[in-house]
């Protein structure tokens, strides 16, 4: 990475707000991500994380505030527009199709073709070769490119979606809760790939409510709480406990701890009696 490339944020939201009817989903939130940087967007359910990323991926438009790419203000007219500009969003549940093969999934919507006119056809040889190479690159060996994605583990599927987004020229990778449905080992596969994408100079926005997953990969932590920004921190500036309490979960966790303590005490007295 050059110093130049990381000086201006590749993608940023400047004081954006969004109203749904009379519900204020987001109020004055700012977020930015530079090339070769991972910005972890943290927040409890309902904090406005989804609304913010839907704005950044062209699904919703901000009611006030602006989006900018490379410092220039932009308007994203559709998800397709965002994709064309190099913003790739990987939604957790929408990553891949389990009943389709690896190469068919990899090139979905971007199928290479050979031939002209009515004989124009899906170039399966190229698709197979490239899919195999790209999967190899990310550490997944595909023996049969006709293998259905349903046979792959959750972490591998998520990784396939990330590799695909990268291959098709993404500059910004937005990952929506990529680890929330995964076990420890599977999450590790995805986290490792986030670091790989970062090393290649991609700007990564990693949405999660799992602080343990965010801490080891994040360069920056943007915290949302009840639709408002609860602060932005650099790596090393903030501890796990602080992040938790900023996410709005701190007081609840403290309450839960007290409650559990009381229950345990009650249980002990029952045992004694």
């Amino acid at each position, binding site marked *: 990475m050059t110093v130049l490339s990381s000086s201006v944020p590749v993608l940023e939201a400047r004081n954006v707000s969004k109203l749904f009817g009379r519900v204020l989903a987001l109020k004055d939130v700012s977020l930015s991500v530079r090339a070769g940087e991972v910005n972890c967007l943290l927040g409890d359910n309902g904090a406005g994380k989804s609304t913010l990323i839907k704005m950044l991926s062209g699904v919703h438009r901000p009611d006030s505030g602006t989006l900018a790419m490379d410092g220039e203000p932009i308007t994203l007219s559709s*998800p397709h527009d965002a994709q064309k500009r190099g913003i790739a969003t990987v939604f957790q549940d929408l990553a891949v*199709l389990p*009943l389709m093969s690896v190469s068919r999934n990899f090139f979905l919507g*971007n199928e290479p073709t050979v031939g002209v006119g009515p004989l124009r056809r899906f170039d399966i040889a190229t698709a197979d070769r490239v899919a195999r190479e790209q999967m190899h690159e990310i550490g*997944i060996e595909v023996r049969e490119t006709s293998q259905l994605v349903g046979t792959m*583990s959750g972490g591998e599927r998520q990784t396939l979606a990330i590799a695909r987004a990268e291959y098709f020229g993404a500059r910004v990778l937005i990952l929506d809760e990529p680890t929330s449905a995964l076990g420890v080992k599977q999450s590790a596969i995805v986290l490792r790939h986030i670091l790989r994408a970062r090393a290649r100079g991609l700007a990564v926005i990693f949405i999660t409510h799992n602080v343990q997953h965010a801490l080891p990969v994040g360069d920056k932590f943007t915290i949302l709480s009840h639709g408002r920004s609860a602060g932005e921190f650099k790596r090393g500036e903030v501890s796990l406990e602080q992040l938790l309490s900023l996410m709005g979960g701190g007081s609840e966790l403290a309450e839960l701890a007290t409650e559990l303590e009381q229950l345990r005490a009650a249980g002990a007295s029952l045992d004694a009696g």
Partner: protein
Amino acid sequence: MTVDATPSEAQRIRRISPWRTFLTRPEFGSIIGAVFIFTLFWALTGFTVGKGFMSWQGFAAYIEVTAQVGILGATVSLLMIAGEFDLSVGSMVGAAGLILAMCVSTYGLPVWLGLLITFAFALAIGWINGYLVVRTGLPSFIVTLGTLYMLRGAGLALTRMATNGLTIVSGVNTSTAGDPLAWLFNGTIISIGGGDFKTELVWWIVVVLVSTWVLLRTRFGNWIFAVGGNKDASRSMGVPVSRVKILLFMATALSAAIFACIQVLSFGTADVLRGTGKEFEAIITAVIGGTLLTGGYGSALGSAFGAFVLGVTQLGIYFVPGFNSDWYAFVLGLLLLVAAMLNNWILRRASGARS
């Protein structure tokens, strides 16, 4: 449990033999089914050769049924892989047939114009089916059930008005005799041992080959699988979901029109009620062919074997002593159940029981 240093998940996948790959193909069940049903009926007719079931005449008879239902089955398979049903194909056969017959017989239009109007009508209804499904978001089962009844009802009423109370339009042959375009739909290609093989066989093969090619070898085919697998995921990857569905509804309507033209030009008459029940036979053909009822997986080639199973069953029953066609529906229902269960099993193997 022992854990290796850094085992990639994929390294645990065994190398897959070609035989195992074949076992997980969606067509696998239908090929086995076709061979089984053929052998079964041959056995039930006492393994005789040269007459009855195992004769050129017998063969020509069930190939005729096979080809006709197969024309519908191939396009219905594509639509089902894309996650939709078309129940209106049955009444489309009746309606398209009437339009062709009235054009050439009642109004004396040339055959080419009659065919053009018939196909245009089918494509328009197909477009309406597709448009209604993608715009309303209603299940296609309901939308096309609606058009099924509307086409049937309008067909009956309008034909009675135009023909003074009849629901059958006849006299098509006199207007189409010797017409080369009509030959395309009713001509005999070859006669062997008293069995006539007609152009419908070619139509069937062409429709199956084109459907298979589109499904497996084009971008559009990739989109068909994707749309049926997950509509929202496909849309987020830039697949034109609505266009794919509308075009497929037009394809099923078109295949119903081809079916109708074959019947009308072969029999010389059109009947509103012709094609009744074909919508379900087409779905059964697709399911026996390995297509999943829930979409996202299946085969157009498999539907050809599915159609063969249907054709052999429907005609084969006549050759079995002591049986009659009453049993056809029973056997068909049984086959559907067995096929659906077999598909489930194949799918579990193909997807490694994970999804």
